[in-house]
């Protein structure tokens, strides 16, 4: 092999392999890296052979997972070596090591280009392999390749062409869509098509051409919008060479998945192929795989057929079903694993096709029978696919009853040693569950829960809970299941699940004694999960009086058994327990002085608790207890909950909850809190119509458990609120109400604060503003803060406030990656009435492609909505995108135009360069338009370190010491856009120490527009430094001058921009 000659490398590898542990290995590797580093420093003495050897060592070290952060230049330089082995390692190393740093490649661009347009096929291969891996982004290179591809003298060089094809389509991943559209789709596709159709081409080229066309098609479906193309496809399916035919079928799959209508004529051909393979066995030996005639082609052909809605033509249908029947019946499980895999690949595809074609009932039950056989075989792959396909079958046809016959076997699969299979079994059981078998299946799941591995428990618990709720034959069974679930897998039972139990029990009187008794039973267990403590405490607080006659269920006994758990539970649960104690006390008639004493002692103890919620409850309940009879009314049983969709089922339906909605709910809950107290005084609502607490509570599925606990507390506070309404309706004397408010009012505030602190900052000032009456408005809404300053600040950082006025706050958060950006606009309504007719329109400049997701027309009171925004930078330009934002608040219509901070420097990325990297590059870019120089006057005086800071904040990397003149400053950066891809930019500033207001600036890059735009950009920054360029410690005498565009007047600003 190529490496056998390098003894040093072999020695090193065996050394590493002999290391006893990771530490030894690291030591050995570090030693070697040190050695290589020293050798590379004295590069002059290195022969190409030695270089090659060291680079191989580096590659080996890199493969072991160690960081190799030097020697890249040496590796790259091997690319220009004249001999094949050195060149090869150069290319391989470059493709492995330099993935993240494309700009290094610019240094060898000429070598690569020469290799590609040269006549040496091997070198071409190497160069193209590298391009495949590195996805080098230089359009020019592509154009070169394209040109040579079109050159007639290369027309006959087939392997060269096939290599080019490979590279084109790999690069197609990286080269932007627009470019493909313009350059390739229109000019290249016809040539590829010709290659594919041409009978004189070698199969090697033709199969690559087919796949290349497929890739082109994915980029732009228009490439096959050629008259007569579908006829050609039909002809191509007559191909004899199975390699070409496989590729053509892949292409057909892509085409028909997009639009099958044009390709109906291909259907009979596909059936012919299947007949040729499966029936006639007309296949050359090299395409027979373990005795199966080209399984891939069979699979692909059947896949293609599945994209046609049905097959009408009776003859074709008949022939197809004959083949399918043969496949279904003729496949057996044998000993050879590979043969099994191949034959079953075909078989499962045939099953899928049968299902798709909606065959006769007879054939369907035949399929189910087969699947039933499969899920019991020894071969795990087949068991897995059997279960998966059964699940699929559930969805497609009404064969549930036949599948149910295999329920026992499926349940056995739940205990399969392979977790992949267990998961499939769980999915299938979940899918096949209905009222008739829910009891069996759920009980199986519960039983399995105690032995199931950790990775599956959560899913299992959730699925069991959902099934129990969906298909419960009776409610007591449902209670049993959920309590068992909490008992066995408490950690995986979300609060939603026990809230739901409480709702059911509250709304079903018949269920209450049963639930209470069950809860009491669980409390006898020695160690129970905290969730169990919560739910049983709640249930017993409400309903334990219904059990009073039973043994062990006197109020005293109930209290003491619950109280036993108190030392072990967390704060939110303590709060629930306190409520339970109050309720027990309330139900205790006539009061048992001993019990009363015990409970009062608990309240007394917690009156000084550090947790404000617990303290509040202790104080309140203690005070309420003194009220005697009034307590009964206030702590009466909870009223029924309104009917609502199960949060759990909802969660199953939409696992992903819009975060905006969440925050809206949160802020609504927060807002409603004080309003309840008000409700008590002047407008008693219809009973039970305002249970916002529990409602929002159940509706928030995926909030952290902390927040849930918070809300749970709130619910109980609300419970009091709700009851107080009952109170007010029963016409209590106002003095009582006053007392109540006195107790209830103040503690609300801290609870609310608790919530607020969890939310995104709503400053006090805003709160104050929110109190402004809505209809009393001045005509013009004044923005808070300086819009221009905010914009400039955001040019340098990625999150902050873009705009704020008394009603609305627009925050922004951005992430930038090469030429892509993702911004999220946070539109926050600061007031207590909704903002309507909200509109946000982006006016993008021509160089940015911006997609704004849908902005809701209304922002609910105190809510915040998030609008993601995708930005793609097409070309270098300093133009700025504008957000045209408007809304109505009451009678006021507000419209602002805001610049979005998607500015040029967001597409820059730091890149440090050493002298030997910088200068060749600097020299190679000579003169306009790639290198531009300008003397700039009227510059804000900045010292060199200050200027360096400023540059750094714009992602320009300053390389100190590169320029021999200490008054000069040299910087480098990478600019990303779709047209330039990653482009290295070099900047040099020559300052005059005697006059800091002028300097000479030179900017160079490989793209004339980029050079110009970057130069102008830097000039703007230097001439007017925005006030808030935070990271720069500006001298105090520097005053911000007016920014280049008038910012306060949106109209003028727009005019300036567009």
């Amino acid at each position, binding site marked *: 092999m190529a490496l056998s000659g390098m003894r040093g490398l072999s020695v090193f590898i065996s050394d590493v392999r002999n290391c006893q542990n990771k530490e030894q290995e690291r030591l050995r590797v570090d030693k070697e890296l040190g050695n290589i580093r020293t050798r590379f420093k004295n590069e002059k003495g290195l022969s190409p052979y030695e270089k090659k050897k060291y680079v191989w060592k580096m590659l080996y070290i890199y493969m072991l997972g160690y960081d190799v952060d030097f020697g890249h230049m040496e590796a790259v330089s091997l690319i220009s070596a*004249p001999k094949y082995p050195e060149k090869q390692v150069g290319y391989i190393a470059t493709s492995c090591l330099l993935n993240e740093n494309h700009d290094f490649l610019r240094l060898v661009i000429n070598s690569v280009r020469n290799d590609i347009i040269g006549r040496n096929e091997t070198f071409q291969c190497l160069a193209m392999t590298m391009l495949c891996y590195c996805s080098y982004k230089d359009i020019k290179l592509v154009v070169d390749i394209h040109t040579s591809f079109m050159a007639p003298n290369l027309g006959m060089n087939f392997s060269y062409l096939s290599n080019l094809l*490979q590279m084109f389509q790999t690069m197609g991943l990286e080269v932007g869509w627009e470019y493909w559209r313009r350059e390739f789709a229109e000019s290249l596709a016809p040539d590829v098509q010709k290659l594919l159709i041409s009978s004189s081409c070698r199969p090697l080229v033709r199969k690559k051409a087919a*796949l290349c066309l497929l890739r082109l098609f994915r980029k732009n479906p228009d490439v096959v919008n050629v008259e007569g193309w579908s006829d050609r496809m039909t002809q191509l399916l007559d191909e004899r060479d199975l390699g070409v035919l496989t590729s053509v079928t892949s292409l057909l799959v892509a085409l028909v998945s997009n639009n099958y209508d044009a390709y109906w004529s291909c259907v009979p051909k596909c059936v012919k192929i299947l007949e040729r393979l499966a029936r006639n066995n007309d296949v050359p030996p090299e395409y027979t795989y373990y005795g199966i005639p080209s399984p*891939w082609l069979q699979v692909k052909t059947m896949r293609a057929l599945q994209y046609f809605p049905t097959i009408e033509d009776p003859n074709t249908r008949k022939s197809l079903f004959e083949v399918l029947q043969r496949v279904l019946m003729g496949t057996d499980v044998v000993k050879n694993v590979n043969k099994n895999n191949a034959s079953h690949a075909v078989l499962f595809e045939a099953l899928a096709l049968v299902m798709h074609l909606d065959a006769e009932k007879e054939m369907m039950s035949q399929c189910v029978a087969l699947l039933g056989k499969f899920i019991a075989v020894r071969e795990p792959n087949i068991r897995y696919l059997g279960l998966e396909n059964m699940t699929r079958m559930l969805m497609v046809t009404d064969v549930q009853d036949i599948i149910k016959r295999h329920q026992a076997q499926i349940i056995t699969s739940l205990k399969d040693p392979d977790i992949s299979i267990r998961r499939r079994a769980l999915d299938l059981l979940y899918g096949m569950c209905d009222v008739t078998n829910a009891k069996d299946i759920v009980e199986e799941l519960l039983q399995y829960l105690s032995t199931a591995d950790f990775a599956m428990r959560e899913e299992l618990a959730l699925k069991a809970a959902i099934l129990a709720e969906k298909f419960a034959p009776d409610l007591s069974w449902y209670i049993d299941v959920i309590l068992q679930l909490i008992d066995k897998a408490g950690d995986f039972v979300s609060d939603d699940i026990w809230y739901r139990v409480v709702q059911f029990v509250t709304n079903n009187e018949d269920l209450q004694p049963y639930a209470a008794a069950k809860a009491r039973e669980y409390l006898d267990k020695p160690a129970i999960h905290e969730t169990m403590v919560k739910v049983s405490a709640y249930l017993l607080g409400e309903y334990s009086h219904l059990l009073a006659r039973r043994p062990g269920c006197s109020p005293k006994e109930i209290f003491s058994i619950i109280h036993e758990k108190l030392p072990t539970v967390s704060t939110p649960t303590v709060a629930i327990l306190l409520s339970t104690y109050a309720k027990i006390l309330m139900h205790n008639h006539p009061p048992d002085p001993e019990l009363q004493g015990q409970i009062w002692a608990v309240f007394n103890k917690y009156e000084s608790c550090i947790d404000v919620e617990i303290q509040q409850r202790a104080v309140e309940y203690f005070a309420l207890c003194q009220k005697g009879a009034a307590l009964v009314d206030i702590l009466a049983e909870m009223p029924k909950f309104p009917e609502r969709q199960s949060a759990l089922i909802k969660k199953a339906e939409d696992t992903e909850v819009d975060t905006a909605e969440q925050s809206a709910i949160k802020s609504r809950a927060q807002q409603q809190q004080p309003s309840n107290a008000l409700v008590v005084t002047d407008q008693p609502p219809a009973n039970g119509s305002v249970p916002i607490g529990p409602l929002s509570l159940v509706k928030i599925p995926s909030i952290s458990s902390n927040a849930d606990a918070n809300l749970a507390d709130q619910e109980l506070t609300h419970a009091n609120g709700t009851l107080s309404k009952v109170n007010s309706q029963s016409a209590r004397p106002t003095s009582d109400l006053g007392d109540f408010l006195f107790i209830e009012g103040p503690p609300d505030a801290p609870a609310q604060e608790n919530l607020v602190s969890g939310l995104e900052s709503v400053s006090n000032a805003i709160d104050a503003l929110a109190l402004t009456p809505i209809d009393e408005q001045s005509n013009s809404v004044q923005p808070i803060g300086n819009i221009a300053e905010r914009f400039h600040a955001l040019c340098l950082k990625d999150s902050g406030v873009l705009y704020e006025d008394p009603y609305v706050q627009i925050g922004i958060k951005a992430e930038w990656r090469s030429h892509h950006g993702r911004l999220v606009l946070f539109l926050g309504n600061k007031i207590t009435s909704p903002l309507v007719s909200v509109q946000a329109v982006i006016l993008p400049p021509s160089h940015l492609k911006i997609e704004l997701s849908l902005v809701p027309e209304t922002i609910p009171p105190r809510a915040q909505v998030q609008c993601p925004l995708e930005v793609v930078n097409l070309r270098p330009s300093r133009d700025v995108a504008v957000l045209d934002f408007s809304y109505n608040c009451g009678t006021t219509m507000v419209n602002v135009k805001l610049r979005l901070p998607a500015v040029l420097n967001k597409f820059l990325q730091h890149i440090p360069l050493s002298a030997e990297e910088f200068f060749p590059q600097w020299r190679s870019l000579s003169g306009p338009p790639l290198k531009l120089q300008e003397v700039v006057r009227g510059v804000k005086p900045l010292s060199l370190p200050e200027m360096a800071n400023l540059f750094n904040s714009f992602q320009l990397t300053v390389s100190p010491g590169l320029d021999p003149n200490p008054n000069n400053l040299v910087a480098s950066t990478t600019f990303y856009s779709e047209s330039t891809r990653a482009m290295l930019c070099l900047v040099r500033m020559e300052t005059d120490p005697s006059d800091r207001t002028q300097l000479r600036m030179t900017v160079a890059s490989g793209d004339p527009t980029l050079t110009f735009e970057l130069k102008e950009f830097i000039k703007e920054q230097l001439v007017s430094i925005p006030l808030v360029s935070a990271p720069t410690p500006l001298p105090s005498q520097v005053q911000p001058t007016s920014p280049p565009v008038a910012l306060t007047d949106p109209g003028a600003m727009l005019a300036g921009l567009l």
Partner: protein
Amino acid sequence: MIRAVMVINTQGKPRLAKFYDFMPVEKQQELIRSVFVVLCSRAENLSNFVEADSIFGPDTRLVYKHYATLYFVFVFDDSENELAMLDLIQVFVETLDKCFRNVCELDIVFNFSKMHMVLNEIIFGGQVLETSSTEVMKAVEEITKLEKASNAISLVPRSVSSWQS
């Protein structure tokens, strides 16, 4: 479409990683690690399928095959047949076996360029290019012949090698 091909040894060291969608190198490493964590916890004689949704996103599938000290892993979307992918792994390994005569991990450590060459003739931009290991060998041998021929003579113009000066 095939999204990725990986060869990882039983100690979690990657021996080959080819991603057919653009993927930054750190992400590649992270994915390889996550795949290895899943694979190394799987006993022998289990199925060759692993749920990959949590690693590669929804609708992706992963099949792997364990040969001696190496895991061969293919990641692909639901437009491919799982068992056919498993067959393709077998073809890949059989072809390597023909190349190296009883291929072992060391062959691959030292000759991963060859492994890439073989793979390039089997999968082309995420699509199955050739499924017959005989045909793949033909193509590989053709390239090797070209390589050997060009080894003797230098065809690179002088100006190219002097780019650095």
